[in-house]
């Protein structure tokens, strides 16, 4: 053991010394070279291999363009400074834009004015009907290419670009709406420093966009979901069958029971703080499970429990949880409705109130479980001042240092989730801990494989784990 310790400490000091004595090298970049652009520019070569297709794995209303950059982009005459993307649109989009702005104006008149005239509402309805009629004709008009329409600029991109995603709106009444299942045409122009000199590409189309029902890019995620789900179910089943599962001791959790006993001896209450999370935070859900165990013990020992809450929904749930814990302990008669109460939905007002409770009711034990932000240290220091035993657990990394420093026991991150399983010693919940451990082992193996793959230069392996958002 001692060997590890020394190895570690020495290594660490070495690293720090290394950093501390680090000498800087490297040259700042040179001043810019001024490129002189000749006055008359010959037309650049057009882009080639222009392709247009529906953007995959999306909700539709978007087209992806791909091309090979012009021969004069970064090479040749080096005259291309960017590209312009054009799309062909029927002339009726102008009347649609006109209608949209009219609708906006009428709306502004309705909501800006003091009185809402009935005729304005009627007007907006007729305008919208007209718009809908145009919208229905849009697909047909697009099919009429190249009659009755013109090329319109979509966007500009800098030189060197070879892909562009024309991201349209899905809102029918929004500017930039791209209809699904409609023939669209595109063109890309190569630009030079002289705004007149540019070369258009060949036209691509017709191309249609539409939404997909399955996102193929997320296959790795799906596989992980299934594997992990199966793993959890498997171990839960194993546990149900009665297989013993070892769980290492977790400091903070073992302390909970002692702390409740201590509170009973001293005749002082226990304060349970659920933090600033809402029910949507999983940390809060884990905190509820721990609250259930604590409340049950409290009911058995006949101690007082104080649960001030920050979120009204959390308050509702916590009331339910505490009530049923008393019920389970067979002490439903001693449950007090107002032991769980709402304070306010303002971070520091909540802290001010909880701090007051700590100094006035002098709880023997303070338990902080769930989401905490800047208030963590305010709470924990006041609790230490009041002389309470303090147990904390959070998954907010930024607040862990403060809890560690000011509390007697701290559950770090995942330990909070493990605690809910550990406290009850219910085999079903313990089963999932085992599954989590297998997942961790998988991470370690994957990391080692990933490192090896990186060293050997197998990029496909790392790319497989790259998830696009």
């Amino acid at each position: 053991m001692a060997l590890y310790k020394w190895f570690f400490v020495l290594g660490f000091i070495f690293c720090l010394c290394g950093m501390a004595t680090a000498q800087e090298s490297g040259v700042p970049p040179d001043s810019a070279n001024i490129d002189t652009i000749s006055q008359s520019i010959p037309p650049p070569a057009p882009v080639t291999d222009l392709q247009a297709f529906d953007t995959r794995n999306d909700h539709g209303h978007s087209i992806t363009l791909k091309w090979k950059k012009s021969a004069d982009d970064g090479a040749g005459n080096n005259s291309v400074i960017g590209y312009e993307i054009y799309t062909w649109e029927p002339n009726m989009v102008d009347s649609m834009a006109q209608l949209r702005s009219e609708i906006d104006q009428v709306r502004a008149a309705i909501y800006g004015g003091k009185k809402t005239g009935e005729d304005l509402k009627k007007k907006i309805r007729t305008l919208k009907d007209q718009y809908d009629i145009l919208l229905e004709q849009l697909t047909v008009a697009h099919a009429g290419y190249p009659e009755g329409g013109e090329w319109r600029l979509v966007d500009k991109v800098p030189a060197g670009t070879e892909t562009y995603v024309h991201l349209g709106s899905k809102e029918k009444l929004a500017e930039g709406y791209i209809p699904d299942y409609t023939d669209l045409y595109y063109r890309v122009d190569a630009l030079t420093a002289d705004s007149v000199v540019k070369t258009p590409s060949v036209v691509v189309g017709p191309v249609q966009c539409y939404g997909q029902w399955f996102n193929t890019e997320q296959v790795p995620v799906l596989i992980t979901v299934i594997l992990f789900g199966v793993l959890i179910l498997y171990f839960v089943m194993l546990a149900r069958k009665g297989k013993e599962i070892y769980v290492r001791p977790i400091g903070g959790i073992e302390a909970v029971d002692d702390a409740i006993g201590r509170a009973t001896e001293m005749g002082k209450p226990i304060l349970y703080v659920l933090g600033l999370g809402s029910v949507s935070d999983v940390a809060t859900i884990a905190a509820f499970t721990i609250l259930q165990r604590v409340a049950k013990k409290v009911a058995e020992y006949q101690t007082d429990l104080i649960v001030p809450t920050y979120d009204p929904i959390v308050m509702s749930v916590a009331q339910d949880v505490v009530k049923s814990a008393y019920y389970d302990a067979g002490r439903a008669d001693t449950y007090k409705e107002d032991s769980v109460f709402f304070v306010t939905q303002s971070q520091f007002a909540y802290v001010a109130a909880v701090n007051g409770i700590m100094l006035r009711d002098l709880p023997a034990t303070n338990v902080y479980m769930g989401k905490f932000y800047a208030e963590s240290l305010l709470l924990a220091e006041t609790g230490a001042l009041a002389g309470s035993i303090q147990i904390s657990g959070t998954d907010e990394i930024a607040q862990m240092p403060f809890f560690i420093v000011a509390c007697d026991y701290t559950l770090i991150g995942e330990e909070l989730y493990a605690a809910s399983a550990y406290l009850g010693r219910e085999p079903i919940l313990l089963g999932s801990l085992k599954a989590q451990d297998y997942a961790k082992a998988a991470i370690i193996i994957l990391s080692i494989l990933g490192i090896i793959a990186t060293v050997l230069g197998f990029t496909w392996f790392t790319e497989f784990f790259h998830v696009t958002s």
Partner: protein
Amino acid sequence: MKRTTVLVMVGAIVIFGISWVLKSMSLTSTTDHYIAKGFAITFAAFLTLCIFSFLYKDNPFYKFAEHLFVGVSAAFWMSMGFWSTIVGNLIPRVSETLSNYFKVPYHPESYNPFYFLPVFLGILLLLRLSRKVGWVSRWPLAFIVGTTAGFNFIRYLRSDFIEQVSATFVPLLVDWQGIGHFFSNLSLSSTGQFVAMLSNWVIFFGVLCGIIYFFFSKEHKGVFGGASKIGIWILMITFGASFGYTVMGRISLLVGRITFLFKDWLSLIS
């Protein structure tokens, strides 16, 4: 009440009064509402001192500020919530008549009779106040917990799990050109090869040991226990470092408050 308490109270009121008068007098040239402004600044300073007095011990001044703050902030959030969520979010989606009444732009395109459902669920939640049918309030809770559990499941799986795993694939060899080259060009420059490699090694093994610390179903013994020990040490170093790093920001907050007292209230500094 004890005599000292009464004395302190009277003293506080007298000081408050004097401060109010002086502050108002000093503001006569800057604003027409100098009496109100003088009161507001004095009161803000008074509340600031009330909260600071907590550092000495719990006292009636702190209690006053605390209870006032709780009441005012609860009402503040209720008013804001009402205007931004019910009026701003719900009404424009449910009814044109109501939106006209509340003068919020109606969104016909997002009109949705289903928006009556959350209202219904919200009312179910309020039924919790009744002892008899309180149990139906669990339905909206079930809805919230279910949707957010599903939502969080995916979010964490992607960002905290898969992305973090792939981020750990750091190259342990950074522009490796053979051992000879490595040693002949050994430098401690923070952008040099050695430091870059060292940092990557620390990251890789740090993550590994950290994960091992979080193993629950295996006894921490032998090599495994050693790795887990190193894991918790690295965690501790990190916690110490971030603690030290945060001090600066917290001091800045105190500077802000003391500046308020000295500048806006006492006009001691310009």
